[in-house]
């Protein structure tokens, strides 16, 4: 029994290349010091922080969705909005922006900084175009005389799309920051790990915004 335990310990890898990290013998507490300080682990905080932050974003949209579901069932003043067709186009845009960002992230992983920068730029453009189409959708509804206070469905439509847009602008700032940084060619190895972590974090956020939009779209126009 004792030998078995020992043998598992010796075969445990402490710094695997890529993929999820295998925890050290003592939880994270021992990982940082096996050998020299590992910049990749140090940079890991960006990924962890992003997941933790997204948990809170998810909770906020959960609270708004639960309000949506309760409010839609609680009275008879609910008038379903006509779906602005332009939202289908914006959905297509944000889906493709996720794809282009994923390409960019993989280019960075393959250490191709030129294509990385270009794909990032394409993503930023697609993101801005998505925001533009959202504004078009709002204006179309306003032209039909449907405002925030018109009825509960319109209130929730403007609120949810608006809250999503605000969060998306945060993502756009992150992408723009990455793109500006990516134009600096020569960087040190330690900074490279940091850049990869930052790119991962922004990518996670952007994919989340994408999924959140699909969810909101379905909630707004298929739930009730």
């Amino acid at each position, binding site marked *: 029994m004792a030998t078995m335990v020992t043998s598992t310990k010796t075969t445990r890898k402490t710094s695997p290349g890529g993929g999820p990290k295998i925890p050290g013998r003592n939880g994270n507490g021992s990982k940082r010091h096996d050998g020299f300080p590992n910049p990749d682990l*140090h940079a890991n905080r960006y990924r962890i922080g992003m997941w933790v932050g997204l948990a809170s974003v998810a909770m906020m949209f959960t609270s708004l969705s639960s309000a949506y579901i309760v*409010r839609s069932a609680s009275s008879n003043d609910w008038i379903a909005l006509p779906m602005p067709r332009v939202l289908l186009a914006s959905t297509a845009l944000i889906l493709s922006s996720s794809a282009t960002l994923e390409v960019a992230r993989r280019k960075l992983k393959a250490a191709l900084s030129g294509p990385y920068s270009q794909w990032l730029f394409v993503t930023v453009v697609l993101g801005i175009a998505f925001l533009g189409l959202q504004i078009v959708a709002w204006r179309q509804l306003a032209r039909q005389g449907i405002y925030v206070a018109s009825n509960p469905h319109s209130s929730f439509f403007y609120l949810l799309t608006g809250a999503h847009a605000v969060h998306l602008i945060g993502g756009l700032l992150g992408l723009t920051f990455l793109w500006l940084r990516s134009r600096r060619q020569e960087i040190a190895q330690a900074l490279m790990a940091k850049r990869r972590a930052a790119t991962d974090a922004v990518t996670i956020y952007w994919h989340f915004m994408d999924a959140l939009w699909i969810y909101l779209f379905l909630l707004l126009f298929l739930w009730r």
Partner: protein
Amino acid sequence: MAETHEGAHEGVHRHPAPTGFIRKYIFSLDHKVIGIQYIMLALAAVIVGMIMSLLMRLNLSWPGTHWPVLETLFPTGAPGGIMNPEFYLSLVTMHGTIMVFFVLTTAPQGGFGNYFLPIQIGAEDMAFPVLNMMSFWVTFVGFIVILLAIVVEGNHAIGEWFGATLGTSFAGGSGTVGPIGGWTGYAPLSALGKIAGPGQGAGMNLWVMSIAIFCIGSLLGALNFITTLLNMRTKGMSLMRMPLTCWAWFTTAVLALLSFPVLLGGGILLLLDRIAHTSFFIPGGLYLTGVLSGTSSNFPLHTGGSPILWQHLFWFFGHPEVYIAILPGMGATSHILATFARKPVFGYRAMVFAIFAIGLLGFFVWGHHMFISGMSPYSAIAFSVLTLSIGVPSAVKTFNWIGTLWGSRIRFTTAMLFALGFVSLFVAGGITGLILGQSSLDLPMHDTYIVTAHFHLVMGVASIFGMFAATYFWFPKMFGRLMNETIGKIHFWVTFVGVYAIFMPMHVMGLVGMPRRYSQFTEYAFLANTHSLVLFVSVAAIITIGVQFLFYFNVFWSMFKGEKAGDNPWEATTLEWNTTTPPPHDNFAGVLPTVHHGPYEFAVPGAPRDYVMQTDVDVEVPSGNGHNGHKH
């Protein structure tokens, strides 16, 4: 140095020690400075909250008495020196809001957590120092905005003074010190705007905005705490070697991360109801002060909203919030009890799981605040059973505290006294939770003084006792000097007896049927006999508030004149006592410590001292000692 790892991890502090005053003390990135900033914010906020409670007591126990000072300060809110009910209600609201958000949430978590979590896990700073600075300053802005709610209601000395300073006038205000919705801000009262009464206009808008800002600040802080704890622990600091304080701060951060967004969502909906005239929380057909909804420009049309929806959103946050207030106190108490009982924490693992169980269950019991909202009795039973089940992990903690003390030779320092006081208050206040948690018993007791007594004892005073204990315990590490023990002991005994004298009679008042939030009870025959009790409570409150200024004096006097403390004045075991006093900018002077032992290795057989520090090498700690749950 044998205690540190062989130079494997040189100082990797990502920001150099600042030199200028502004970068060092105002916009600092150092978690220690930010922690002290949070504590100072709480110390300022608690004075405001305390003065408000004092004013409320004056009005309750000496009804009809003319207070010339009130007449001068608040000519509209207290005409002739007698408060009107709206003024009293605005005091209730602001006292609750300021105490819950800016004292009970900031000091335990933002203050002590910020200062000691990174040191106790052996990190050089928080994971995101800039975010940490932002979370404090966002919280600070939230505090300023809630104070502005006092100012904009104007028509009193404070409003006039600020008005003169800013070159405007708030004479159009209602003369209250803020909105009158209570800290829970129930809709539709809070959602209607100015037409709903004094303080419901600009004051209420600022109240909602302040809370939304506070939510954002807390979220940034929680994100930082969680990431720091997960990613920044030093070598050997496995999860089960962390001090219980770290577990408590971590759980608190998780609660904050998941509950504040819900309040933020609710706050946005409330603000839209108020500003954009939506109807999330406002039902149709409301008739207020002679105006029907939709027939006047200052009372636009509202239809179909659900006031209960606000209650759900609020209490989904509100219940975890009470654990956000008290869990850090539980952590500090466990830590301090073990240190001064010179024994390992009894059942360390059970304590960790109990903290998590309390945090988890805290998310499923919000309905017990809403038993009288007309909810289905089946839901009420579910909420009731879940609520009572929190008694189990709470009892685990209490018995383990007693187990830690059992048979020990206690060192009765002021910190220890306050930690013992915490246990006492937690039990005394928690026991009524089991009564109020049963829907059938809650129906008659809801909104009476027994609720006031319950939550003040368990969430208010117990948490504050945890923070007092933490202050007396960690002050020497933070400022390099010990606090005065004589003043400290006077402070403890008067406060301890005082809070019981304040809140025990309130249970009786509640059983008699005295309702919360009423400004006076002179008109109710069935409450005539309680007046002497009301008077007793007020006298106790005045004495207890008075003695808190001894504490303030002790803090600021000891900072400069206190007895010099060494690096480890309490002979404690955890990492903060392993570094110099006060800790250097990167906490460990460039070389992070390596941890070899659990956090509470006191009275280890065969060890050279009666305690083994977490970094000590060449000491064999038998596996039965400490936190493996064995008897010893």
